[in-house]
């Protein structure tokens, strides 16, 4: 009797399993999920689904498929529309022989038009559904539609399909910091802070004679709430990243105020740290922005003798000016043009001066464009490379 009970219990546990079992070869791996605005305000999904049999050809005969030379693209593009996200997804599923598997999707491509109309619906669906990666990057695609992006000819790329190409580009941004790509998590967290504006990467489809031939990360896309309001140039993006303490490594080129005209000096910014302190005088709110920069020299054409400390000091002053101008320009664009608090000054005010924050929070849209900033930059050139004195051709 006791044994029978145990048997039933074990059976009950084991047999209730299996219900969510999916063999790995019955999955449709989505890599690259694009969202466009369809007809009649519908949501239009466009996904890139991998064909594993064609991808894994390195090992010769791959399983039962026989492998052989991979003919054709290693992926297929599927599209579907729906009144909302869930409907669009179920429509998409109707077209597929395998069940959609989204957990390997690390990039969400947003069409510019769709982004301008607001992306709240997307975010809701994606955060509710456990199949979406919260760490997926969000990119706004400009210069063409998503179909063009996914159909990009592979002979123009290093990677085997456009998704991987873009993923590589995003990861490569840490070398240049020319675009600021945020992931789903960060995007949502930013949205949840009142009045703070999200910012994410912008992917430009490079065209030649009306045909897409390549991709490029250019600056970033500024949102206000969940709507795209405009774009930032590369330089402004770098300034914003400096302010957000997100700058990892970037290049800085001096071209003005140097000893010889039409010469350049380039530095690699290796460390950047920013402190932002709100100052209140009566009704005026201003922010002191203190930036500390560490650089090392990359290239100089203007032949400064860097064994002389005075020269180095002079260059440091020039760097300070350059960065200060950059930051001021970026802030100007954000304040006057987009009225988007991308850096989150309101958040800083909340932390430092909660009483004032309560008063100004509602009217921040009006106050923000008028806020003053005092930018002070302190930079240091740590290393000047292997040559101390420039080479003099004789």
């Amino acid at each position, binding site marked *: 009797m006791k044994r029978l009970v145990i048997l039933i219990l074990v059976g009950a*546990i*084991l*047999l209730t*399993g*299996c219900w*969510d*079992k*999916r*063999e*790995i*070869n019955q*999955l449709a*791996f989505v*890599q690259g999920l694009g969202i466009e605005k369809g007809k009649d305000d519908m949501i239009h999904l466009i996904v890139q689904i*991998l064909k*594993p*049999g064609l*991808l*894994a050809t390195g*090992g010769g*005969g*791959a*399983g*039962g*498929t026989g492998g052989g030379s991979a003919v054709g693209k290693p992926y297929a593009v599927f599209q579907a529309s729906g009144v909302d996200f869930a409907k669009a997804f179920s429509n998409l599923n109707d077209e597929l022989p395998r069940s959609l*598997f989204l*957990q*390997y999707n690390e990039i969400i491509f947003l069409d510019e038009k769709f982004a301008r109309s607001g992306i709240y619906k997307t975010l809701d669906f994606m955060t509710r559904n456990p199949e979406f990666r919260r760490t997926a990057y969000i990119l706004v695609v400009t210069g063409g539609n998503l179909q063009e992006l996914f159909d990009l000819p592979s002979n123009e790329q290093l990677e085997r399909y456009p998704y991987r190409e873009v993923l590589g580009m995003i990861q490569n941004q840490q070398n240049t910091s020319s675009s600021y790509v945020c992931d789903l998590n960060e995007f949502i967290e930013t949205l949840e802070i009142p009045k703070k504006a999200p910012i994410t990467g912008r992917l430009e489809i490079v065209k030649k004679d009306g045909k897409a031939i390549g991709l490029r990360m250019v600056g970033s896309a500024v949102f206000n709430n969940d709507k795209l309001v405009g774009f930032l140039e590369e330089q402004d993006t770098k300034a914003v990243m400096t302010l957000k303490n997100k700058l990892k490594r970037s290049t800085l080129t001096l071209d003005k105020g140097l000893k010889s005209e039409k010469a350049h000096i380039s530095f690699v910014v290796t460390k950047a740290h920013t402190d932002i302190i709100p100052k209140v005088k009566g009704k005026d709110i201003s922010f002191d922005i203190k930036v500390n920069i560490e650089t090392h020299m990359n290239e100089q054409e203007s032949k400064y003798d860097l064994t002389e400390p005075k020269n180095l000091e002079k260059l440091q002053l020039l760097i300070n000016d350059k960065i200060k101008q950059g930051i001021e320009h970026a802030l100007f664009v954000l304040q006057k043009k987009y009225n988007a608090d991308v850096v989150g000054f309101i958040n800083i005010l909340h932390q430092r001066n909660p009483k004032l924050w309560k008063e100004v929070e509602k009217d921040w849209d009006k106050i923000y464009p008028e806020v003053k900033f005092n930018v002070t930059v302190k930079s240091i050139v740590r290393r000047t490379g292997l040559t101390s004195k420039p080479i003099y051709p004789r």
Partner: protein
Amino acid sequence: MPHKLPDPQYVKENYQYMTLSKKLEENIYIFQVLLKGNNDIVFRQISIGDKKVKAFLVYVDGMVDKLLITRNILEPIMIETRKLNKIIYTNDQLFNYINEYFITTSEVNVKDKIGDIIDDLLSGETILLIDGVEKALIISTKGWEGRNIAESTTESYVRGPKESFVETLRINTSMLRRRIKHPDFVIENIKIGKYSKTDVSIAYVKSIADDTVVQEVKKRLKKVQIDGVIDSGYLEEFIEDNPFSPFPQIAHSEKPDKVTAEILEGKVAILVDGSPFVLIVPAVFVQFFQAAEDYYERYFLSSALRILRIAAMFIALLFPSIYIAETTFHQEMIPTQLAISIAAQREGVPFPALLEALFMEITFEILREAGIRLPMQVGQAVSIVGGLVVGQAAVQAGLVSPAMVIVVAMTGIASFSIPAYNVAITFRLLRFIIMIAAGTLGFFGIIMVVMMILAHMASLESFGVPYLSPLTPSRTQELSDVLIRIPWWAKILRPRTVQRKNIMRQEDTRG
């Protein structure tokens, strides 16, 4: 009138309680009744001295050293006793003279209980019965052909003593005695087995081993009432704490050096005549991962190898299950590129991952089993067939995916790297249970079964020592000999899990 001989039926039933009589004739009759039909038992009738006292020499042919009998028993008794002609003596005195002056072997006992004498006779002693004496001389003449001491085939070292135990108990005890030359080293003997009367020795160092453990070992051994003990494995099952556990709770070894080391840590060794495998109690789980060689090779290397072995244990136990769980339930946990490649390999495989894994694992187990049992010459054919069929053809036929072959191969190799075979087979068995759990419940199932196994292990005890010690209950100091091995000069104390009365292993000379 002739002396009335006892009824044979009576003798057979009661010989255990009978003693020798004065009449040689009757004694021999009893022996002949008891050992009737055995043509390997030799009754040699002799006459002693000038008085021609009748005597019998009884021994088992093949179990005695015949040269010894001829030179050291027969020769002195038959020839030298003639010199006794000047002295007047009774038969009893003659018996004593022979015992004290004539027999020149090293060990002689005097016994009168027929049961004891029969036991001794059958274990290779020579019995001398003299007419008119109620006692018998038990002359130690054991000597039979046995296997030579050779290198171990089950535990092999790169560095360390090569010799291993043999089937003869005395040779085995001598190997231990040679290594521990201290009066406190005790080798106690008992006989187990109603018919086999197997000699079993309990070896321990009196001043180190825990008395309660020694008492417990003796108590449990005495309870064994089996007809015969062929191998120490019989006793292991009788005396282990939890006979229903898949985990071995008693260690065994074929190497005298390893057994010596364990005895010096306060453990008790049980040697069984006829078995080269010596049991060591109490046993803890971690010791099955400690190869004796760990202590001979330099400690850096040994520590690294131990960590490797623990990793191999986890691979042997869990690798196929993790593969199954990840490919059928938790695909998101596999790195993208790998997942794509696995998916590509599984394209066209008709079975679910669980069946695929079970198929391969069972094939592998069959191959392994076949390889062990087969004669050496056929073994090669098995490995060729196995390697080709399982490795290549199955993949090409699309029955299994190449990744699965790698998983199974890894698991197999990992399970070989566990030094103790008995634990390795436990893991072989448990692996299948975990695989089924993984195939039905995913990681949840794996964790569930692993938790059950852990709970079971935590509940085990071996002769009063918790099985998982020193991990739990944790003794931080002894952890220095679990995952790593600290150098010998730092091992000041003996492990206290096993004993606690004599913990100093060496004088602390580090200043």
